[in-house]
């Protein structure tokens, strides 16, 4: 039985850990980033947890990305649980390990996701298909690719609410780590000053 005392709880970690699990559930249904070509003729719904594509009404996933999404799901799940357990037992002997295990992962997931998007859009741009990470533009398919037919399409990319929630969760987890460090530093300083006063 975990003996939880309110003053011992790391509230940043508690909210951060809860938010990680909320982000995990939300990300299954809502993407972090969405790309729409034409009037929903082709779509990309991307997040570290669930990435899927749609073309002319036919949905599909890419197996490699699906595997990476499983990795993302497990990372969010384990780090969320670890952060929650740490948050209510921050003074236990194992708490440091739980915090170390969990606090960086949401931030790394957010950074990894953004870096992946930047790389993909850069590669697409170098192939002649300008894909906006945010905002709208128009792409033109080379006419020699499609038997002399010139095709242009509106294309828009945007980050979604789930992405902002993930940033907040990551920030709270980092804050929880800083708060933990300061609290322990404060206790050590207090103990050291008490000892010096007694001597």
């Amino acid at each position, binding site marked *: 039985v975990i003996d939880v005392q309110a003053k011992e709880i790391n509230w940043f970690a508690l909210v951060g850990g809860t938010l990680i699990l909320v982000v995990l559930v939300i990300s299954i249904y809502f993407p972090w980033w969405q790309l729409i070509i034409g*009037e929903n003729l082709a779509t990309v719904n991307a997040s570290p947890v669930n990435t899927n594509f749609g073309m002319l009404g*036919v949905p599909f996933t890419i197996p490699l990305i699906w595997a990476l999404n499983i990795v993302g799901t497990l990372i969010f799940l384990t780090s969320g649980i670890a952060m929650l357990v740490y948050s209510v037992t921050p003074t236990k002997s194992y708490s440091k390990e739980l915090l170390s295990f969990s606090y960086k992962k949401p931030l790394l997931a957010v950074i990894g996701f953004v870096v992946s998007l930047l790389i993909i859009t850069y590669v697409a741009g170098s192939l002649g298909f300008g894909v906006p990470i945010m905002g709208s533009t128009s792409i033109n398919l080379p006419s020699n690719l499609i038997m*002399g037919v010139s095709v242009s399409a509106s294309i828009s990319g945007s980050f979604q609410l789930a992405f902002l929630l993930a940033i907040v969760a990551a920030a709270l987890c980092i804050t929880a780590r800083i708060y933990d460090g300061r609290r322990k530093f404060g206790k050590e300083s207090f103990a050291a000053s008490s000892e010096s006063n007694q001597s």
Partner: protein
Amino acid sequence: MNKLKIILTILTIAIMVVPIAIELAIYKDTLIGLIIPPELTNMMNSGGGHNSNGNSVTNDNYPDFINPDFEMPQQVGEPTYDPATKTVSFTFNITDPVEKPVTVDTFSAGIVSHDDGVFLGNLTISKPITLLPGQTADITALGILSDDAINYLKIHAENQIPINIDLTNLNVDVGGITIQLDSQNIGDITVPPGIFG
């Protein structure tokens, strides 16, 4: 290094490696399948459809993303001509070619006689048309004819000579995608003898 730290490190490595290793094992014979899913391959491959007689077609005519009920546009009735506005109208019955609603926002083209190069007029649709999956709709295209075009068509109508038609500067805006084509031959049309009164 305590036990918990070792367990968490192993857990992290397992989370990173196991799902990807399983996928690699599944696709070990066709590694390209890791990146190009079967749905996409099927989409690009040919599938089935229906020809204009409603008969099932399982040859190479239609890719899989095309609605299996798709039929090529068919003319409905005969063209009509309004002498007051010099406008000829054609009605086509068209099926949504894909499995989702599609809106044809604009359609415009010039009509040119392929053999004689005579410019006959411009063709447009009067309003956007939304096609629902599996449903058909009538599209009425309007063409405003020049005097030369009317004379040209009258001669062909009286003698029942088919006119081979090119659509030029074809612009179609479908579902936010704009398709432009310099010229597209659409074959012979026969102008009904009584169309000009």
